[in-house]
């Protein structure tokens, strides 16, 4: 059997004395979507941030293709093909969509200067695939609607040929049409062989899209299930009860 794309082992993250995540082991295979569920403050975002390099882990190990790797910064994670849509979006409000999309990975001219027109064109192309009415990639994103901003952040996560995609509540601010587009997008990326962590509170979405669900409660992993083998009620019970009842 092939090694998982990503494997978390005994991951622990503390904030001061608070254990936000502890002893979590979780694998993600190529071409699969793993839904990450849990109550507010369960540790979902923290776990994802450890993998995306935003938070260094306090104990445990991250393996990619079966090999232990050190992920100390977002740049390390990107080098391993891990792209992240953060729950907070992580956009610079004063910059346009194009500048945000390429932040840290700008397209430059032969002289090494920023090629804004090339970035604007590329940004427009990616974003329009998700949101056909999007037309201004230069105006500061603070002037965009919540859903439009979310689209910009999603576009940034998918534009750079990720192998592993982390999506922390990708549809939180989206209308039904856009949510549908994002669902279709996830299905397509999965078919292309990406591994995707999908954090969401929307059980309906999660059951529709994911192959397996992982439930966290109070920083611990309650259990992992094949989506086809559990009911929503069972999962809900795991989330609320924090115990592996199924």
């Amino acid at each position: 059997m092939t090694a998982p794309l990503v494997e978390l082992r005994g991951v622990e993250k503390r904030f001061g004395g608070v254990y936000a995540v502890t002893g979590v082991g979780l694998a993600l295979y190529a071409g699969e979507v793993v839904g990450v569920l849990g109550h507010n403050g369960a540790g979902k975002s923290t776990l994802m941030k450890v993998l995306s390099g935003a938070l260094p882990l306090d104990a445990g190990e991250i393996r990619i293709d079966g090999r232990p790797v050190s992920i100390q910064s977002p740049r390390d994670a990107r080098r391993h093909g891990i792209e992240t849509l953060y729950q907070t979006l992580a956009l610079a409000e004063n910059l346009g969509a194009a500048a945000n999309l390429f932040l840290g990975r700008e397209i430059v001219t032969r002289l090494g200067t920023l090629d804004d027109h090339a970035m604007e064109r590329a940004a427009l192309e990616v974003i329009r695939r998700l949101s056909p009415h999007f037309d201004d990639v230069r105006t500061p994103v603070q002037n965009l609607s919540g859903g439009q901003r979310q689209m910009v952040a999603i576009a940034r996560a998918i534009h750079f040929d990720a192998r592993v995609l982390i999506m922390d509540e990708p549809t939180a601010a989206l209308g039904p049409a856009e949510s549908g587009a994002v669902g279709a997008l996830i299905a397509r990326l999965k078919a292309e062989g990406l591994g995707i962590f999908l954090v969401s509170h929307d059980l309906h979405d999660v059951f529709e899209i994911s192959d397996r669900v992982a439930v966290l409660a109070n920083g611990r992993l309650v259990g992992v299930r094949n989506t086809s083998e559990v009911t929503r009620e069972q999962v809900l019970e795991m989330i609320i009860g924090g115990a592996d009842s199924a």
Partner: protein
Amino acid sequence: MSLAQRLREAELDPRLLGMGIALVAIWTVLDATTGGVFLSARNLYNLAVQSSVVGIMATGMVFVIVARHIDLSVGSVLGFTGMAMAVMQTEWLPADAGWNWPVSLAAGIALGTAIGAWQGWWVAYRGVPAFVVTLAGLLMFRGGAYLLTDGRTVAPLHATFQLIGGGLEGSIGTTWSFLLGGLAILATLASRALRRRSRRRHGFAPLPLWAEVGRCAVAVAIIAGFVMVMNAYTRPRSEVGRGVPIPVLILIATALAMTLLSRTTRFGRYVFAMGGNPEAAALSGVDVKRVTVGVFAWMGGLAALAGAVTTARLAAGTNSMGTLAELSTIAAAVIGGTSLAGGVGSVPGAILGAVIMQSLENGMVLLGVSSALRQVLIGAVLIGAVWLDSAMRRRRTST
């Protein structure tokens, strides 16, 4: 089409346009009240020279404030590095060597850059707020300027070095001014044309023709007008025009370089990203700490460049050079539309801010306003400008 739409279509920054209008209004009023003295070639020449020191530093202060920091040490760094350059020239290096002044100038700028980087290191890697680090710098380098010579004034400076201060001989003459002005016009037109081509190539509509022609016309008029005024001010007892003063040339070159740095380089992009959302910048892989050190290093280098101009202008090094210059520099950047909340600001705006402040100062001197009253009024203008800006921004976002 509404005015706001038209401005947007012409890609004109409403803020910059507003400041331009304010400057024209100030000049008109001052010229009327001084009976035409204010807009004379002689006074405009002096105004340009007077604006150069603060203008040079304001271009760097924009980066510092955009990155959500502040630098209170620039006046003292100006004094310290200016003093160091003077001492180097007159006492450490052979006084009559031709390489004396370029070496001391380069060493002074390197010193300023190192001081800035050192302060930036405390801010970025040791987490001491910039306000505190640079307040300490304000004290330390003012004291350092005194300690360099125990308070002695250092003179004389190399004759060539003195030219960068813009004294009697410190301008480039009419021929060179015309030549450079012509080149500047050609470069402006060429860069606009390149921009149009690039937009078309990437499938974007170029600026509407009326806007493009208008922009170019204004740019050409400003350059040509500037050169003609500088050439119209003659040397004493002669008909020979002076041309563009060297410190103003330095300011223009600095402004150009810093504008390019802010708009066309990764570093500039990262400074703005950090100012908009430091966390997002870090999550996007920007090395926020290194960029912070870079911002302060640039500021230190520019303070040293301003120190060279000041020293050359005084033809001596004195330990009080640059006192309170940090305040004029910050005020110029802020009047020029740099937001203290970070993330917003522009180099051309800061230059305009410096010219507006210097115009008020200069005009009030012509009108015989006492220095105490001048301070009161300039302070009031600072509050008024920031209030106006934030009030306008509120209106823009609430509609």
